[in-house]
C-alpha cells in the first residue's frame, strides 16, 4: 500500500489531488489484482489432486459444525411425494457389488458400542416396524429421482439390536466385500426418515439397488446411502468413508 505523502507546502490543485488519489487507488487495485490472480493460481493448482487441501477441509468442517449446531433437527423432514411422482432411478454405483450376491448366505455383522459383536439375518430386520417413504433421492452429481423405499428405521434397529449404541458418535457401514464403506454421524442415522431399506418402489430391493439391505437417508447425498450392507458398527471414532477419501465432504448432509 502507498504511504502517506509528506504535507505539501502549497495546497494541491484539484488536478494534483485527483492524480494523487488515483495513483494510490490504482496501486491498491493492482495489489488486489495480484492477490486475486494468486488465488486463481491456487485454485488451478489444487484442481485434479486426489484429495482436498487442508484449508478447504477445515472450511467444510466449519460448515458442518454450523449446520449441526444451528440448522439440523430430526424434526426437519425431507419432502415426501405421492406414488405418482416416482421416477426411474438410475444405477450409479457398483463399488462393493461387483460380485453377484448369494441372498441365502447373506448376514449382517453388527458391532454395538461396548458390547459383543453379533450376526443378524434379514428376518431380524423385517421383525422391526416397517416404514415406507417416497422421497427425492439426491445424487451428489446434482440429479435426483423420486423413489419409494420401505424398511426399518435405524432408531428402531439400534434400540432393539444395539441398545445403548445411540450414544456413539458415528455409525460405520460397509459392503460384505469391504470395498465400499461409509461413516454417518449419529443424529443423521437416527433421523426418522433414515431407513435400512429392503423394498424399493413396492418390490423387494433388486440386487443392483443393493439387495438385500441398503441404507436410505434423505438427509444425505446418495454417496452415503450405501447399498448391500454387510456390516454395521457403532463407534466414537470417525469411520473411514469411501467418497471422503476421494475428496468429498465427510458430512454430505442435505
Amino acid at each position, binding site marked *: 500500500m502507498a504511504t502517506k505523502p509528506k504535507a505539501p507546502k502549497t495546497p494541491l490543485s*484539484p488536478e494534483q489531488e485527483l492524480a494523487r*488519489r488515483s495513483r494510490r*487507488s490504482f496501486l491498491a487495485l493492482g495489489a488486489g489484482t495480484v492477490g486475486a490472480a494468486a488465488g486463481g493460481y491456487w485454485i488451478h493448482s489444487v484442481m*485434479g489432486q486426489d484429495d482436498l487441501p487442508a484449508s*478447504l477441509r477445515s472450511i467444510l468442517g466449519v460448515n458442518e459444525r454450523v*449446520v449441526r449446531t444451528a440448522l439440523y433437527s430430526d424434526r426437519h423432514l425431507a419432502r415426501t411425494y405421492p406414488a405418482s411422482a416416482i421416477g426411474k432411478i438410475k444405477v450409479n454405483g457398483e463399488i462393493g457389488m461387483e460380485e453377484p450376491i448369494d441372498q441365502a448366505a447373506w448376514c449382517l455383522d453388527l458391532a454395538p458400542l461396548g458390547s459383543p459383536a453379533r450376526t443378524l439375518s434379514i428376518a431380524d430386520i423385517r421383525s422391526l416396524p416397517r416404514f415406507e417413504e417416497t422421497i427425492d433421492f439426491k445424487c*451428489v452429481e446434482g440429479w435426483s429421482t423420486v423413489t419409494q423405499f420401505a424398511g426399518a428405521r435405524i432408531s428402531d434397529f439400534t434400540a432393539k439390536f444395539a441398545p445403548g449404541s445411540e450414544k456413539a458418535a458415528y455409525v460405520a457401514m460397509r459392503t460384505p466385500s469391504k470395498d465400499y464403506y461409509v461413516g454417518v454421524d449419529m443424529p443423521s442415522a437416527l433421523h426418522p426418515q433414515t431407513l435400512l431399506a429392503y423394498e424399493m418402489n413396492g418390490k423387494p430391493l433388486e440386487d443392483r439397488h443393493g439387495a438385500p439391505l441398503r441404507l436410505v437417508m434423505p438427509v444425505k447425498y446418495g454417496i452415503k446411502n450405501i447399498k448391500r450392507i454387510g456390516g454395521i458398527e457403532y463407534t466414537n471414532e470417525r469411520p473411514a468413508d469411501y467418497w471422503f477419501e*476421494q475428496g468429498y465432504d465427510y458430512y454430505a448432509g442435505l
Partner: protein
Amino acid sequence: MSRVKVLEEKHKLATRWFHWLNFPILAAMIYSGLLIYWSYDPYRIGLGNVTIFHFFPKGFYELTGVVQQLAIGMALHFAIAWLFAINGIAYVLYTLISGEWRALTPDRNSFREAAHVALHDVGFPVPLPPQGRYNAAQRITYSAIVLMGGLSLLTGLAIYKPAQLHWLSATLGGYEWARWEHFWLTMGYVGFFVIHIAQVIRAGWANFRAMVCGYDLKETEINTNGD
C-alpha cells in the same frame, strides 16, 4: 465569474471496496459452480426435441478445465460462498444505513426514463433525462443485480440443504427448480457483465477512474470579483 475545476466525490470508499471485492468472489463462485454443474448439465435453450443451445458444449468444458472436478468444485463453492454472502450482506446493510440506497433504487419515473436511456444508448435521437449519480437504467439494473445476489444466496441454500431448509426449497418451487433458478441467475450475471463492461468502455476513462479512486473533476462557476 469564472469556471474552475473542483474535486467531486463520485463513489464512497465502502462502495468501491464492496464492488471490487465482489468481482473476484463472484468469478470464483461462477467457476466453482461450473465445476459442479458439469456433473449434471441438463439446461438448454430449446423446446421439446429441438435444442438450440445446450449448456454447455463439450469443447467449452474441455477449454475451461472443469471435467471431473466435482469434489473440489463443491468444496470451493461452499467455502467462497461465505465471502459472497458476507460481502453482499455487508454491502446491503451499508447502503441502507448510509442512505446511499436513495441514489441507487428506481423510483416511479425510472422505468419510463430507462427506456429513453436505452433508446439514446443504441443511437436514437432521444434526449437523456436529467439524472443524479445514476441514470434510470443504472438504477434499475444495479438494484436488480443486488436482488439477484440475494436470490442466488437463497436458491443456493435451498440446493445446499433441501431437507433442513425444506420450507425454503418449497418456496422456490422445489429442489430441481431451485437449481434451475440458481443456474439462470448466474447466466444473468454473465449477461450483465458483458453489458456492464461495454458501458464502462463507452463511458470512458474518468468514469472508470472514479470507480477506482472515488473522485472526478467537476467544472463549477465561482465568483472572482471579490463580492
